[in-house]
Every structure is written in C-alpha cells, then in structure tokens.
C-alpha cells in the first residue's frame, strides 16, 4: 500500500497529517460504496486536471456558467457526467444549483455516485491544498498497480462497490441530496454523530456513510474532532488557539463565498 509522507517538508509536521492522508489514500485505492477503485482514482486525477481545464476557465468567467457548451479536459475513463460533477465542484462550487444537480441525475448519474464523487473530490482538494500551502509537490496518487496489489489481499466483498444504502436515508428540504435523519441513535450509522444530532454539513454526505467517516477522520487532524466543533472554548492542544483557527476558517469560507 502506498503511504503518504511529508519527509520533503522543511518544517516539523505533526505525524497525524501523513497518517490520516495515508488512510484516505488506502480508501482511494479500494472499492467505494458506489465507485470502483479505478473510478475513485480517476476522480482524484480529474480533480487535478480540472485546474487546467479551459472549458472550466471559460465557465468561471461566464455569467451563466451552465449555459455554456464545451468539453472538459480529461484523460480519465470516467463518464462525461462524472467529469462534469468533478470539474464543477472543484472550479465553481459556489455557483452550483439544484437544477444542475438534478440534471445530472436525469441524465443517469446515481445520487449515491454523486455523493461519493463529492466526498472524494473534497478530500483531494483539501489534501492538495495542504501540500500547496506547505510549498511541496502534490502527493503521488495511488496507481492501478497499487489497486491490484491491494486487491490481492482484500476480501471479495471489498473489491467491488456494494451500493449500500442506509435504511433511514430520506429526501428532504434540508438538501438537494438525500440524507440520514439527524436523529440516528440505534442505527448502523450511529457512529457518524454519536451525540444523536449534528449539523447539516456533516449530514450532507450521509447517503454514503463512509464519506462522512472520511470527513470525520480528516477534519479531526486538520481542524478539530467533531465533538469539539460546537465547543468554542476547545483548542485541541494545537499551536493555533481556537480563535485563530476560526479566523482562518472564516476567511477561507468567505473567500469561497460560502453561505453556510
């Protein structure tokens, strides 16, 4: 299994960054709930290609981005619908609309596939952003050889997507995508928010519970454990005080024009 390391970073780094990124890399090279390992790696590849996509650049400049006709720069084997989802989330997320999302579904993308794409895209965006912030090269993605090597050691049920859908998932006015009920005690997904309730940003990807588990894992290292997020006095023992964390978080969110 390919591990992520930051040995080339000229600063002392907490080891939990590399450890959590390695856990995500391991997920990336395994079958997900809706996507194969190869598709998951292709999504990660497409995230990086989106940065240089001329069609995305033109849409970013357009007043009505989704009215523009064109073709994304793409070397993967993902379907055009998946590529559209990946590139739009990476390059112009603040202008996505429910109509755009529903259009993807009407053309054949499954809602579970979409949510798994969201989870994979945002994890890569975050990990790549971290590398850029530290001034080092993006970490090499897992390869098909890694997938094959891991596949030889995995149980059969881990090699293909199982399309698991939680029983308590439902469509609501709380989001475009179906989500688990906020009250999830006693369900197989009770581990996602042990307090029994949580914010919509954590629920958002709960149609694919493993995407929430990845979010929890990475956020605990980059920011805070979920149980501490709503406790403004908790500092997590980091070099940054909580108010400094929230200043950075708020500015990044504002620059991304995030209403939430």
């Amino acid at each position, binding site marked *: 299994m390919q591990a992520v390391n930051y040995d080339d970073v000229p600063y002392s780094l907490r080891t939990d960054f590399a450890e959590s990124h390695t856990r995500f890399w391991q997920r990336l090279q395994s079958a997900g709930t809706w996507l194969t390992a190869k598709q998951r790696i292709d999504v990660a590849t497409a995230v990086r290609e989106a940065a240089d996509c001329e069609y995305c650049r033109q849409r970013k400049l357009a007043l009505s981005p989704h009215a523009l006709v064109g073709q994304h720069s793409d070397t993967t084997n993902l379907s055009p619908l998946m590529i559209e989802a990946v590139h739009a989330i990476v390059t112009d997320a603040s202008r996505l609309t429910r109509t755009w999302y529903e259009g993807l579904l009407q053309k054949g993308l499954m809602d579970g596939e979409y949510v798994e794409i969201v989870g994979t895209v945002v994890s890569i965006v*975050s990990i790549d952003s971290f590398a850029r912030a530290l001034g080092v090269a993006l970490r090499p993605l897992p390869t098909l050889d890694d997938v094959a090597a891991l596949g030889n050691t995995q149980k059969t049920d881990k090699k293909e997507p199982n399309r698991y859908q939680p029983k308590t998932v439902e469509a609501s006015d709380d989001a475009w995508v179906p989500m688990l009920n906020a009250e999830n005690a006693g369900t197989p997904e009770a581990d996602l928010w042990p307090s029994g309730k949580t914010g919509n940003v954590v629920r958002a990807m709960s149609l694919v519970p493993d995407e929430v588990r990845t979010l929890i894992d990475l956020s605990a290292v980059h920011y805070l454990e979920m149980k501490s997020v709503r406790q403004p006095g908790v500092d997590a023992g980091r070099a940054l005080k909580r108010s400094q964390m929230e200043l950075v978080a708020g500015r990044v969110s504002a620059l991304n024009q995030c209403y939430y």
Partner: protein
Amino acid sequence: MLRASSETHDESINLDAVMAGGAAGEIEFATELLAFAEAIVSGEDHTITIARDQLVKTAGQDVMVDAAGVASNFQRMVRIADSTGIVLGPMAEVTSDLRESLGINSFANRSSV
C-alpha cells in the same frame, strides 16, 4: 464560532476582517494568518510562499502548519455545502442579524437556487 471563541479567550474581534480582510482585533498573528488564508484560497504559489514565510517568521512553523491544516480543511467544507445544497437549519435564525450585518446573505444559499 469566531465570535464565541474570541470571547472565550477574552479577545476583541473585528468580524468584518473575515469578510474583507484587514485588521482583526486582538487575535494574535491575525494579519499574517489572514494573509496566509487568502493566499491558500488564491492557489498562487508565489503568493503562498510570501505569506507562509511571513507567518513562519512572525509566529513560528507550528502555527503555520496548523493554519495550513485549518485552511485546507475549509477548502473542503465549503465545497461540501455548495455541492449538496444543504440549508443552515436552526442556525439560520440564531445567526440572522450577524449574517445580515456581515453581508453573508449576499452569498447564494445553495438550497434556494
């Protein structure tokens, strides 16, 4: 959460700095932290290098690394919200006045578009 955490640390805070940059009040290293956050969102390597070097020089490398972690975390969180169309829920009412005064309501609520 910024307002609540600054109160916990007994620091005055200018919340407008979150929306527009500039002086943020009594939060230590605020100027350098804001510049680093802005550089990371810009994605421009040269700008990031300048902001990173300044933050390390002023606050030390551990602060810079943690700031890189937080900033990159929120590069993720904003995209989750935007791409799933979630609503604010009960927080909308609680934060209504603050959101209006800061201009956050000028950003599109994904659930309504």
